[in-house]
Every structure is written in C-alpha cells, then in structure tokens.
C-alpha cells in the first residue's frame, strides 16, 4: 500500500488546488504562478533528459516549446473560434473541453518531429558542435514563426482565451489548472519510467561512454532519436499549455533567453536528477516572482546567483541523486527503477 502514497498525495494536492481555485479561494495571481511552476517543471524535466541523462548540451529547448505552442494554438483557434484569418469555427466550441487533450497531443507530436532536426545530426556530431546545432534550430523556429504572416508573424498570435472560456462555459472548472497538473504528472511519470528502465538507461551509457555502448549492443542511433524526440515533444506540451494559460504568444517568448531559463533550472536542480528538476523549477519560478519588484535588476541578480551556484555547488542542488537517495525512507513510498 505504501508505494501508492506518493500517487495519493499528488492526487490530494491536485484536488485541493483545483478545489481552492474553483471556489475562488486562490486569487488569480497565485493560480498563474502555480501554473507556471507546472510548465517549468515540464521544461526542466524534459531538458534534463538530454543535458543530464544523455550528457549532450541542448540549448534550444525554447524552439521546441514554440513549435508545440503554435501548433496547438493555431489548431484550437482554427477549430473552436471565429478568427479573422482562419475563418469561422469548424467545430462547436463546446467540444473544446473534450478535444483539448488531442490538441495538446498534436503540439507534442509536432515538437517531437521538430526534434528530429537535432536528433539526426546527433548521429554524427556531439558536444559543442551539437550544441551549436540546437542553437541554430532555436533560431530557425523563431525566424520561421516571425516570418509567417498567417500566424501573426512578429506581432504574435492570440485567441486561445476564447477557447479556454468555451471550456469554462461547458463546466465551470479551472480547466487550465487541471490540464497543467495532468501534463506535469504525465511528464514526470513518462520520464521516470523511461530512465528507470534498462532501455532508457542506454542513454546514460551513451553519456558515460558512447563507443562502449555501441559495442555492447546498445543501438545508440535509435536511443538518441527516442531521447531527443521525447524531450522536444514534452517541451512542445509545455508550450501548448503555456500558450493557453496566457492566451497570447509571440516569437519573442521563445528566444534563446527562454532556453537559457530552462538550462538554468536543469543545472540548478542537478543533472540527471528528476526530483532536482522539480525542486529547481519550483524554486526558480518562485524566485523570479519574489524578485519581480526589482524589475530589470532581476536580470542582474538571477545570473549573479547562477555564477555563485557554479562556483560553490557546480553539481546543482541534488547532483545526480534523487530525493529518495537522500532520504532512503522515502523509497518505501514509491517504486524507483533501482528494484
């Protein structure tokens, strides 16, 4: 029974927060922060798959987020609302509630396919060279969006608020909060399951010694493809959620700056530590909010803290350990892959 404690605790947390939101106990600002925490957890956990577990350096995570954000936004606006460019709603807006997961999935799949742009070069290049490729992909995605008038170009794209409103009309629930929480839990489950299996540990073997992995029957090409597509796909999921939370997106939200934020969260939490990624996403999001009164100075304070972190604790909060390694008692409460 103990092993279900974590699942039950998560569920209780979800129900409590949703309940509090639904009954207006949580003001809109806290809701927003909570949702951004969820999105950031997805981003840092998915990037950790590449930078932490597989040991490559991807610095274009925001590019995949953008693909997911735009694909799901365009789909939901096109299908469920009347839009100046995209025409009348194709489906009845009430259906949005039921089809929203499919829309998020479409964004996820599109981002995963965009991940191939990095996965395929990764067969031949690695390290610094691959990092430059990821950077290039980030710029390519951003420039394509900026120059596509159909999705608003540099001005951005909006209309997702109406879709969320349509969901609320069917049932008065904090829908975005629910989807973000489901998305976050889903992401963590998928990544944990992957990296705790023998299949997924192949990517750690690639990090430690790629040639040995290849010679010990690990199909490194297939694994790299899976890892990159999984990571970028989940970034796309985060993008889709992000777009529908804000109701407005523009290419400026998905620049190298955003990718850097993702990197900071991964390194803050510890490479190859899933619980580290979660903790750092929570901490980082809260920190940014707390420092909001500082306005622009925030962007001096935060990078400076990063310098301090690299100097005094380069392995991040958790190193490559999990919470259950630090507190072995926790292990009884959920199953890890360590048998």
């Amino acid at each position, binding site marked *: 029974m103990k092993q279900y404690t974590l699942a039950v605790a998560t569920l209780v947390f979800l129900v409590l927060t949703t309940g509090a939101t639904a009954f207006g106990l949580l003001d809109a600002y806290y809701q927003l922060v909570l949702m951004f925490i969820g999105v950031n957890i997805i981003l840092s956990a998915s990037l950790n798959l590449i930078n932490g577990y597989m040991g490559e350096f991807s610095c274009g995570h925001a590019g995949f987020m953008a693909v997911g954000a735009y694909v799901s936004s365009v789909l939901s606006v096109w299908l469920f609302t009347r839009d100046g460019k995209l025409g009348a709603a194709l489906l009845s807006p009430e259906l949005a509630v039921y089809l929203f997961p499919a829309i998020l999935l479409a964004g996820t799949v599109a981002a995963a396919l965009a991940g191939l742009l990095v996965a395929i070069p990764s067969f031949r290049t690695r390290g610094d060279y691959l990092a430059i490729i990821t950077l290039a992909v980030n710029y390519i995605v951003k420039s394509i969006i900026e120059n596509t008038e159909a999705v608003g170009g540099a001005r951005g794209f909006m209309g997702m608020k109406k879709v969320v409103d349509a969901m609320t009309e069917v049932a008065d629930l904090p829908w975005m909060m629910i989807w973000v929480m489901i998305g976050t839990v889903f992401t963590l489950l*998928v990544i944990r*399951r*992957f990296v705790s*299996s*023998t*299949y*997924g*540990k*192949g990517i*750690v*073997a690639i*990090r*430690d*010694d790629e*040639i*040995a*992995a*290849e*010679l*010990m*029957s*690990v*199909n*490194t*090409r297939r694994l790299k493809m*899976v890892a990159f597509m999984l990571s970028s796909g989940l970034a796309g999921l985060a993008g889709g959620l992000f777009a529908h939370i804000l109701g407005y997106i523009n290419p400026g939200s998905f620049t190298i700056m955003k990718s850097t934020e993702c990197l900071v969260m991964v390194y803050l939490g510890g490479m*190859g530590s899933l619980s580290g990624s979660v903790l750092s996403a929570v901490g980082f999001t809260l920190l940014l909010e707390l420092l909001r009164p500082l306005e622009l100075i925030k962007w001096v304070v935060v990078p400076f803290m990063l310098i301090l972190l690299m100097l005094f604790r380069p392995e991040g909060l958790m190193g*490559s350990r999990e919470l259950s390694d630090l507190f072995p008692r926790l292990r009884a409460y959920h199953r890890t892959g360590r*048998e």
Partner: protein
Amino acid sequence: MSLFQIQGLTHYFGGLRAVHNFNVTLEGGELMGLIGPNGAGKTTVFNLVCGVYRPTQGDIRLNGTSLPGRYPHQVSSLGIARTFQNIRLWAEMTVLENLNVAQHCHLGYGLADLFIKTKTFRQREGEIYRVSREMLEVLELKDVAHEVPKNLPYGIQRRVEIGRALTMKPKLLLLDEPAAGLNSAEVVGLMRLIQWIQEEFHLTVWLIEHQMKVVMNICTWIQVLDFGATIAEGTPDDIRQNKRVIDAYLGEEVH
C-alpha cells in the same frame, strides 16, 4: 561450418597499411591468442571485427553471416562481445546497471511496452535483472553490485567488464589485453577465470595479450602479428621456438 572466419582482411588508415591479408578460422571452443609488438595491428583487427571500422578489403563471417558494413551494435547482437584494453565501463552507473544495459540485444520489448508497462516489459526486465544477478554471483561480484565502477579497484573493474560482456551471451568473446595493469596474483586469478568461463559458458575466446605467461599458459593456438601481417602461428611451443617471432617480438631471453 566453422564458427568464425576472417579471410584476406586488409585495412588502411589513409596511406598506412594497418592490417594486411589477415586470415583466421575458429572452429568453436578454442582459446586463441593474438600477440605481437605494439602497433602491430592487433586492436585494429578487433575493431574491424566489431564494426568500429569498415575494412578496406576482406570478409569476416560469424556462423556464415558476413559482418563488414554492419553497425557495432548489430555485430554484438549477432554474438560477439568484447572487453577493452583500457577498461571502458560506464562509470556513473552501478555495476548491476552496467550488466543490465549490455543486455540491450536481448531486450525483447519496445517503447510501447515500456510506457504502458505491459506484461512483456515486466517479464523481460525481471529476466534481465536475474541474468545480471546470476552473473554477479558466479563472478563473486555480488558485494559490489550497487557500487559505481569508478570507486572499485582495477582488478575488480576487469572482472566486471568481463561479466558485462558475458551477460550478452556471446558466442565469441574478444579480450583485449585482459591482464594489463593487474598484479601477478591478480593475473593468476584472471587466467583461471578465463579458462573457467570458457568451459562454463561454452565460449570461444580470442585474446590479445602482452604478458607471455598468460598467453603461453592458457592459449591452445597462437597467432603472431607484426606490421599488420601474420608472421607465425601455432601451438605455444611452436611459437616459443619460432625464429621470426623471437626476432620480432619475444627476444632471446624468453624460453
């Protein structure tokens, strides 16, 4: 049909001829030695067999299947496992995980199984852990199962590396200087271990070694390589007395 056969293997690195017209046949069950001075091309032969390089010329066959042109992971899945001159364990994974991951060729489940946690997935993962545990048991490595290799002494790391290769259930095991860096007591242990695993797992072993004590004592057949070409082959006694081998490699004092 013989288990393993190399015919006319020739390889160039740019203009440098590293291996020249190399031939070998292993019927199965041998303990074959490959010796020669540094730079003779021994490790290159192993790398060619494993698919690290694609040979310029020549054919390599395992059970009649031609190997050149296949990826290393395909070659190893066909039944060739190896160890490395300078140990290449995955340093951040535990010993048990090292042994698990080497069983990727026997994974037997796909991504869908993994994410849905199907019965196949659970059975196969259980089987993988069982094989690794058994291997740790027979190699007396049980105590270090949850250690990471980088914290272990060199001799133990060697044994883990051999264990990792064995969990792949190979038909042919290539050992690249297994005695390098071991003290003399460990070398004796290693010799016993190699002979024992060869019988226990019905393996064909092909090893590169510089320590004549090892080669002369355990190998049934020895091939000597110099400048990429075979200069002699035969039983340990033949090799010891061969004039060309003494000149090129052994020197006078070894008898």
